[in-house]
């Protein structure tokens, strides 16, 4: 048994296939951790049905001044988050849907299937064991999609950032749009994060 510190840098994998960037998931320098290649993941399981939906087509054909604001308005006012709970923040996530805060006021309705979601709220500590699943879920969500890192753990590992099994921040795995501070953030903070995300979408120009 050698000390893990000595193995922080594992030997490079034997010539990764061209066109794919391996994402290495370090487990305190464990060399036995498998590589996942996001390109492979995408191509193996999911292919887009069509390059553009009918909605995209219409939006491109003109009327950008009318249709785009309408879709933008619709998109920001109906954010369906993925219904899952990682850790402590999930309790506050649930409380935000309770009677006192009622996130449904803003059109936020959790859906269980990632296909029907626009928003992934990473509400808790992300471990390397769940990292694969998290990326898969993110890939399963259809575009356009957003990610909120809720709480210190999802933002940067929080109190567990030194642990051998914890991802120091979910932005190591997927792109994050809004970070919410707090351990755990109060439900108001979560709603505030969602409203900030709505502002981000409002300013989107594409």
């Amino acid at each position: 048994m050698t000390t893990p510190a000595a193995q922080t840098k594992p030997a490079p994998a034997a010539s990764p296939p061209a066109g794919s960037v391996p994402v290495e998931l370090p487990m305190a320098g464990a060399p036995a951790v498998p590589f996942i290649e996001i390109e492979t993941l995408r191509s193996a399981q999911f292919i887009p049905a069509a390059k553009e939906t009918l909605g995209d087509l219409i939006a491109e054909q003109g009327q950008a001044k009318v249709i785009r604001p309408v879709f933008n308005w619709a998109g920001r006012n109906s954010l369906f988050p993925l219904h899952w709970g990682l850790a402590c923040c999930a309790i506050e996530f649930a409380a935000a849907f309770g009677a006192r805060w009622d996130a449904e006021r803003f059109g936020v309705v959790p859906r269980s299937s990632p296909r029907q979601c626009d928003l992934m709220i990473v509400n808790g500590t992300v471990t390397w064991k769940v990292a694969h699943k998290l990326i898969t879920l993110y890939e399963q969500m259809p575009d356009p999609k957003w990610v909120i890192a809720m709480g210190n753990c999802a933002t940067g590992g929080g109190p567990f950032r030194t642990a051998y099994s914890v991802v120091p921040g979910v932005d190591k795995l997927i792109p994050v749009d809004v970070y919410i501070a707090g351990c755990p953030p109060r439900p108001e903070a979560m709603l505030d994060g969602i409203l900030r995300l709505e502002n981000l979408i409002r300013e989107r120009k594409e």
Partner: protein
Amino acid sequence: MSTVTLFSVSYDLSTVIARGVASVFPQPIHGWILSSDVVLGFAILFFAIILLAASMINTIMLIWWERKLLGRFMDRRGAMHVGYAGLLQNFADGFKLFRKFTVRPREADSAGFYFGPTAYMATSLIIFGVLPISTGWNGGTLPLTLLLALVIFSFAPLFIFVSAWSSNNKYSLMGGMRSAAQMIAYEVPILLAVVAVVIVAGSFDLTTIVYEQQNYWFWGPLVVALIVFVAGMLAEMERIPFDLPEAEAELVEGWNTEYGGMLFAFFMLADYLRGLVGSFLVVLLFLGGWTLPTWVPSSLTSFPLAGIVIFMVKTYLVFGLFVWVRASLPRVRTDQLLRVGWNRMIPLSLLAIFLAAVLVTVKCLPLFGCVPSPGV
């Protein structure tokens, strides 16, 4: 009757537009455009478009109605920040889903994956063509509207099963199986309960059935049939306590687990369209359709479009009842559901038929008044 109906409006509109268009063209085309067949065709088209738009808007309002009601039952507010009191919330949802990427899993069968939701949506919309909302709704009379509506209504399990199977997901498959079993099990009691209504009314035509309820509404004497019909409708519409096919806790989202974007919107809309149809049927068969009890002074009901307004108010109230059930009952299990369906519902519906036969034979019941002679 000389009242303005939806069909007459669309016929007039069609005539006006046909005249305008025909005036541009020389004689042979001019005459052809003004021929009665073409005008009638356009009239039907306009009728369909108006009906489609009205039913879509009504469905979306129904979702809003359900969300607000559920919110109140649950001690919260429900959607309230998009539009006045959240009225525009569901339009936002719809537009957003329209805009979303539609993902098809590679292993999914493409034909079934796209055909299922589309056909589900289409069959749900077709029913609105045959349901009368108010007097003189349809241009002509169809003698078997009720039967036609129920037949179209019962196509759904086929399409649900096709889409569930072709999406190649274990949860979808289980949901599809449950859905098919459940809908087939509850078709039978629904049809039998309807037979009770038909025996009393003496017709399969929904308009006639409504007119038969001038003296008294059928919910009183046919209360057993009403119970069977409402329970069966809850199962057909897959709402709590019978929402096993999309039971969230065990099957994620049931048969629409793999559907996102517009196809999911189709499923969502079609579900509520069926909810609307179910409420329509309850109102038509048991609650007197667009009529009010005779003791209501006619001066109160003589405003324009009174029939439609009365009908829609009743419909929303009936749907509110369904929402109430949803807010207060847990979900049953598959085997319990089927057992209730086959062992309880069918005997009950047979009992309802028997009671209806007794009612027709005796002609008069002290509490409910007299039955008009069948077969008007």
